């Protein structure tokens, strides 16, 4: 091998290794942030409706904190190499997306769009060759939210909120209709989409139970 070429390749590889290490540092940090967010969001299952706003308020600064990470990553990814490195932060980013869309649903009952999610996580239009939220990542975030919503439907009833399952049911059905429009390969997304059907089924069951109980015990809702 030509010594100069050997040197050149070594320089390239060292550059890549250095970049990978830098990204890793940010990903470790990102991972820590999103674990805290997901852990905090997990409290929703034992939080009475009245306390939900407080919980959400505690989450907003964390979401905002993710903007540092996306900015940091966008700052070090060389132009047009986004797809080269993105596998490294896939999991953390999907957890952040999940947190953003879940918080929005809990706060407003609305679906946070991909564009709005990008905005919330500080992803800027002008980075589009360095850092974007891909459709796939967004869809993974949505599915994780549905997984949690089926748990929430169950737990909100335990906490005495009999309206929540119905709201959740309508929201999730619409999401499901959206997902049904996609042509998926036999990949992780399709397997997760399949699992989503069980969440919907569970939510339906809760709606069922609640409707029938209300019919039997009209006083329950009132209390």
């Amino acid at each position, binding site marked *: 091998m030509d010594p100069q070429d050997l040197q050149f390749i070594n320089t390239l590889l060292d550059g890549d290794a250095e970049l990978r290490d830098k990204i890793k540092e940010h990903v470790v940090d990102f991972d820590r942030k999103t674990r805290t967010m997901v852990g905090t969001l997990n409290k929703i299952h034992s939080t009475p409706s009245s306390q939900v706003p407080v919980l959400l308020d505690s989450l907003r600064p964390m979401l905002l904190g993710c903007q540092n990470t996306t900015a940091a990553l966008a700052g070090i990814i060389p132009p047009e190499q986004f797809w080269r490195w993105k596998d490294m932060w896939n999991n953390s980013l999907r957890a952040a997306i999940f947190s953003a869309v879940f918080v929005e649903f809990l706060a407003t009952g609305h679906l946070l769009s991909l564009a709005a999610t990008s905005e919330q996580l500080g992803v800027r239009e002008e980075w589009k060759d360095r850092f974007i939220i891909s459709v796939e990542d967004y869809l993974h975030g949505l599915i994780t939210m549905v997984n949690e919503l089926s748990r929430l439907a169950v737990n909100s009833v335990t906490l005495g909120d009999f309206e929540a399952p*119905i709201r959740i*049911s*309508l929201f999730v059905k619409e999401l*499901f*209709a959206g997902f*049904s*429009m*996609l*042509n*998926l*390969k036999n990949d992780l997304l399709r397997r997760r989409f*399949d699992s989503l*059907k*069980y969440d*919907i*089924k569970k939510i*339906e*069951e809760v*709606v*069922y*139970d*609640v*409707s*029938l109980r*209300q*019919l039997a015990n009209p006083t329950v809702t009132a209390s």
Partner: protein
Amino acid sequence: MSPSATTPASSAAAFLAFRDDLDEHNDRRERLIKCSRDITIASKRVVFLLHRIMTEAASDGRELSSRAAAEGHKKLRDVQALFANIREEVRGDRFWRYQHNISPGLQEYIEALSFAHYLEHGTLITYDEVHASLTDESGSPYFPLPVSDYLLGVSDLTGELMRFAISSISKRGGRTKASEVSNFVRGCKADFEGFTPHIRDLSKKQAVTSQSLRKIEEAAYAIVVRSSEYDLTPEQLDDIVGQAV
């Protein structure tokens, strides 16, 4: 025996002919693999289309099935055209030479076709019906239909029926649907069992079918358990819930 007797000229010519033969074979193989991939993709999209239509809200389940089948069959005609295109490539004995290159696409096509057929008729498409879908206007088939591809293709149908049953189970009338699908899949599993010693890989598919069946059975069970707690028919339950939401 003299060295010159090995007739170098003719042997070089022979090897040149062999080269052409091998190159032609490899090129054809490659074209068929590509075509099989195209067929696979198109067939998978038909399956998604069928699921999509079946999850639409509709008052009349039968009407939905007919429309899904009609749209599915329409799209499947494009896939059939892809098979028509390779007709010459696999004419005569060549079909069997390249069978394992074509199989993946052929099985995906059969899966999609059998799904559309099930939605329309509630039955398993027959071997002859599959073969008939791969013929020209005059009814002559594009190529022989291997029994193995037919069976492996329709085996995959059970997975799609499981998805279909799970997503339609909480719709009005979905309980009946789930129980129909459950019986149908149970029948498929039993019927195919006898073929497993003959068809390579069929026993793997049977294992998947068993899993799908279990999922359908458990979904049907959940419905029965719930409705048993009250003394109401499924339809009455549907109506009560309909009012609540």
